[in-house]
């Protein structure tokens, strides 16, 4: 090992933190290397110097008194408030209000689609009935005469369209509130 490789060991040795198993090797090296002996001596001396020169500063005797006084002045002596908790509940309230608005919007959209779908379906069905049912019935079912629109058939068509509307509406609701899907 070269001197440079012993440098970290010298530092640890000077601090008294060199692992026991490394010690014999270092001591053997020190026995034959004057330069490393000098570095170690310098480091140990430096350690003493720094231990002595870097002194703990002292707080003033009235530190705590002044601290409490400052707390009284700045906070009016009141205990600290639950500010972060308040903030949390505020954010939560905002979030929930937003979610409710979103749901309302979704329900409104569902309602519009309901109405549109229902209108189209009913209209289409009625138009088909009006236009083609007489011929359809006449030619396919062998009925000779068609006196006009059949109320029960029209009612069945409306019921089917309404059911489809209800299904769409249910599908558009938030996951937890669906009753059919």
């Amino acid at each position: 090992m070269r001197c440079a490789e012993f440098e970290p060991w010298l530092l640890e040795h000077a601090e008294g933190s060199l692992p026991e198993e490394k010690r014999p090797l270092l001591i053997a090296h020190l026995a034959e290397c004057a330069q490393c002996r000098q570095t170690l001596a310098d480091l140990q001396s430096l350690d003493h110097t720094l231990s002595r020169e870097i002194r703990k500063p002292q707080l003033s005797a009235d530190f705590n008194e002044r601290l409490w006084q400052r707390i009284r002045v700045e906070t009016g002596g009141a205990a600290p408030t639950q500010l972060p908790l308040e903030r949390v509940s505020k954010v939560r309230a905002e979030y929930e209000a937003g979610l409710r608005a979103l749901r309302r919007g979704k329900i409104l959209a569902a309602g519009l689609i309901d109405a549109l779908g229902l209108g189209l379906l009913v209209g289409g069905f009625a138009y088909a009935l009006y236009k083609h049912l007489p011929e359809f019935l006449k030619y396919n079912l062998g009925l000779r005469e068609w006196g006009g629109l059949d109320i029960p058939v029209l009612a069945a068509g409306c019921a089917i369209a309404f059911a489809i509307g209800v299904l769409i509406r249910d599908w558009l609701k938030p996951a937890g509130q669906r009753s059919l899907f």
Partner: protein
Amino acid sequence: MDANDPVASIPRDTQQSAEDQLHRHLAEGRYREAFEVLVAEYRDRIFTLAFGILRNEHTAEDMTQEILLRIWKGLPGYRRTASISTWVYAISRNVCFTELKRRAARATVSMSDPEIQDKVDSTVSSQMPGGELGHALDVQALLGKLPEHYRRVIVLFYLEDKSYNAVADMLGIFLGTVKTYLHRAKLEFLKLIRMEESRVNW
């Protein structure tokens, strides 16, 4: 924790119980009691950290007041996601570094500045007696020549009774980093002393 770490190993039980006490008080919303435990436990360590960063006793004391005031205000917001010491030291570093920046931003510094005067005073008082390495050299001035992150680590290391763990906790850096900085700082310091001595001897 390190077995040969004098600071970390001795007051461990007291540390534990103080921390428990603190958490109990906090859980029950007794902030004043919690704060009293915290002040007793951390006041001096916060002061040491502030001194290590700001290099001036008066400023460090002012900042310790500022830090504790912030801790008092923030106490209800403390959650157990971080240990209390991590939380306290993070606030402390934050306040101190903000203060450093604020000071650096002030362009003009006059010699009548109390900080400068303190420096001059401490320089006079810390002249080393002869007969030792770097005798008659001013240790504080030489420390000031080290890169700031080395100086901070070396100062805190000796202020915290040579505990790597304490320095790592305070500065929020890894133990390995503390060791590396400390060793480089010492070698650098030796170099500075030798340079200074050869300059004096000329």
